[in-house]
């Protein structure tokens, strides 16, 4: 079980942060990901495997300013 933006999610298979983001249709170039209260640099999305208890916060940026 992991937590993403406050919601509990049961993962059905082993996956990386990049896999999770892709499966959930996040646009990689419009987000910032915090994992267990630290920023997760983009280059480590694919090498970071999700494990039980991980807490992700995915911030999605929309246009406008």
């Amino acid at each position, binding site marked *: 079980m992991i937590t993403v933006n406050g919601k509990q999610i049961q993962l059905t298979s082993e996956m990386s942060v990049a896999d999770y983001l892709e499966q959930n249709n996040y646009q990689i170039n*419009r987000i910032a990901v915090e994992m267990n209260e630290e920023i997760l640099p983009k280059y480590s999305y694919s090498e970071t495997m999700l494990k039980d208890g991980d807490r992700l916060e995915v911030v999605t940026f*929309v*246009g406008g300013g």
Partner: protein
Amino acid sequence: MASERILSKEEIETALNERHSPEKQKLLSAGQVTIAGLGGLGSNVAYSLARIGVGHLHLIDFDVVDITNLNRQQYFMEHIGMYKTDALKSLLLKINPYLDIRTDCVKVTEENLKELFADAQIVCEAFDNPVAKAMLVNGILEHFPEKKLVSATGMAGYESSNIISTKRMMKNFYLCGDRVTEPTYGNGLMAPRVAICAGHEANMITRLLLGEEDV
């Protein structure tokens, strides 16, 4: 005729101290804020911070003022075609000619980010483009985790003012906006709501300068 007299530094300081108290004004005058993006968010944030006498401002934008900016950005007809950095600096100096204002007329990239933001005490993300927003936020959090970062997302249209809020996402990362409303046909970026969001950014920055870290 309106008065064209330039106020002295002492006159402005006295007036700011009267409004804010000398103790608080000292912190504001010593403050340094780097504003990235000088559109509807950035120009309004800069106006607020200049008015309360935040002493050191660094303004970054690569663009020129366009006629479609006048619906929400703090520019005038005479600025159309001018670089926003030059136009905004000249306006802020009309409010307070003793502010230290540095400008960089460049596009922020992953390559120049480290150099551009090295001196920043507080970074204000005020871009329009979502890809640029994400790039800047990722870059600052990754390279400068000790700096305070105030960003914004979701402020288009004329939905309720009251769903725009400030949230502390991480220790040094604050996010303002309604988080979802992007500009669409008939629901574009408009002065009132963009200014509300800019007000959230400017007030969070003010709180940080005055030692308040909670939203």
